[in-house]
């Protein structure tokens, strides 16, 4: 049997300290926490940076290092620093060294690197997954960062070095939890299923904010227990978690195979604890890892104007269309830019800024925001495009025979440089002869 403690859905989201203490007292074999996700968009991978503040990360990571010392078990984090690039593994490694030094502790640290060279991936045979974008070699080579998602095999190699702390780059959310029970010979279906249920911490319970959960894995399945006072796991909350951010609630693809939970049974052991059995693991013929990549798609400057005059609120779309036409002519006249190299967009906040052409509702509104988004190959050009847009956003009249109107600008200057805009370009898998072929491990005693 293997007992895995999961303090929270992600490092940076916080956890219930009393619940963590209780969990440590229950002697876990491993503390596992996820550090990342693609859910906040391509910019983090594109820049190789963390979504969460270093300050939050350090406070929470310190608490987990102390919990690890008390429990006497390894601590593993997957997808360090939101995106799991090499830069983020090193970032968290530096934070770890600082904490250990402040605590006067020593530890063996294993760093698992997941980053790939875009030039190499551009020449490598890769296979698109469903709904993958069309990409050519040049697009792949232009990625700022590409990471491969490690599975349990690479985490097991890291744990088997005897490391006290494993800092992993990009991994699947489940790999850090499933690695130890699988190595121990526990039910493979149970290990992967429990890992999927547990990867978001207490989101699989009635009160997701509490964070801390414990999963006991064994030969037949797993048992999940939340540790905070004010939350419960029920067969419904646990089984419903298979829906969460998952396109298929019964099948989950992982390196080396897939999990099938069609036959799973969920049973309440008591008011707070759920027992799950009957899920199966189906190994695949080939060992593949998924790739994620992000590239710069341009540089952006944005501006916001607010329409409060009822006549302009009623005619906002016509006003925006008219501005875009005038702006395009002005850009051609004054900048001589090929229209294919830049873009200008006005999104009407209060009308259809979320859904665009799919919006079905209309309603009267007091005011409307107009978000101008200018995109160009470099920041200076984007800023110039926005400066040419500015006078229209401030004063453009719907007709010639009315006094010059003025609209609300919340800021001076009205233009805000947003820096590089990134896009995800890979939804592909790469076959590996050996799971460690695309990954590197470094072990140090600190």
């Amino acid at each position, binding site marked *: 049997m293997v007992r895995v403690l999961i303090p929270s859905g992600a490092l940076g989201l916080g956890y219930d300290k009393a619940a963590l203490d209780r969990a440590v007292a229950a002697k876990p074999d491993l503390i596992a926490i996820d550090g990342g996700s693609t859910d906040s968009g391509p910019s983090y991978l594109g820049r190789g940076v963390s979504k969460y503040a270093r300050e939050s990360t350090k406070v929470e990571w310190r608490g987990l290092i102390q919990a690890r010392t008390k429990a006497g078990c390894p601590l593993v984090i997957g997808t360090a620093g939101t995106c799991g690039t090499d830069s983020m593994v090193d970032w968290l490694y530096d934070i770890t060294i600082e904490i250990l030094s402040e605590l006067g502790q020593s530890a063996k640290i294993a760093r698992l690197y997941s980053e790939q060279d875009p030039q190499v991936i551009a020449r490598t045979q890769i296979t698109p997954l469903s*709904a993958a974008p069309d990409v050519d070699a040049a697009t792949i080579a232009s990625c700022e960062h590409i990471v491969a998602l490690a599975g349990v095999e690479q985490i097991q190699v890291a744990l088997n070095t005897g490391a006290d702390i494993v800092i992993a780059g990009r991994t699947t959310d489940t790999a850090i939890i499933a690695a130890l029970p699988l190595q121990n010979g526990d039910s493979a279906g149970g290990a992967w299923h429990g890992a999927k249920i547990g990867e978001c911490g207490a989101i699989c319970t009635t009160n997701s904010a509490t964070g801390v959960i414990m999963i006991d894995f064994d030969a037949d399945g797993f048992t999940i227990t939340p540790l905070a006072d004010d939350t419960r796991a029920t067969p419904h909350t646990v089984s419903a978690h298979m*829906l969460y951010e998952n396109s298929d609630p019964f099948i989950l693809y992982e390196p080396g195979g897939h999990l099938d939970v069609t036959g799973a049974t969920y049973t309440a052991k008591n008011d707070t604890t759920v027992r799950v059995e009957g899920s199966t693991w189906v190994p695949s013929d080939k060992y593949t890892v998924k790739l994620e990549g992000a590239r710069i798609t*341009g540089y952006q400057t944005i501006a916001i104007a607010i329409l409060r005059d009822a006549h302009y609120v009623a005619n906002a779309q016509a006003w925006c269309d008219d501005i875009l036409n005038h702006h395009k002519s002005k850009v051609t006249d004054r900048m001589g830019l090929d229209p294919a190299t830049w873009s200008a967009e006005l999104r009407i906040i209060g009308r259809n800024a*979320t859904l665009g052409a799919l919006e079905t509702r209309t309603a009267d509104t007091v005011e409307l925001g107009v978000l101008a988004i200018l*995109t160009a190959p470099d920041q200076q050009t984007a800023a110039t495009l926005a400066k040419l847009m500015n006078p229209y956003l401030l004063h453009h009249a719907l007709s010639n025979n009315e006094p010059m109107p003025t609209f609300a600008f919340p800021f001076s200057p009205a233009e805000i440089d947003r820096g590089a805009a990134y896009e*995800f370009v890979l939804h592909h898998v790469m076959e590996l002869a050996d799971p460690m072929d695309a990954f590197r491990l470094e072990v140090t005693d600190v």
Partner: protein
Amino acid sequence: MSSVGEIAQKVRSKNAGPFWLTVDIFCGTPKAFEQLRDNLSTDRVATLFQISSDQIKRFDIPDLNVIKFSMPRPTIQGARDDRDMHGAGWGPLVAELDVN
């Protein structure tokens, strides 16, 4: 006629990775589940998203009283034309559909 959101307990949309969108309709009761299962067709949802119904994966899950629709994301997450980084806004679109 009532809307999906009035019949169900909760309608939620989320990214399922950067390239897929998933919409979970938590019906709450077997009665609401059966009503929506029988009256909310995949074609209606496809029309709403302006895609063909064979692009939609549908799961009717009686054990959870849940109906789930997954489809390629209308725009790739974070792409220049994406308006909704976390895919939050498509849930209300489905919730506002009127059904028998």
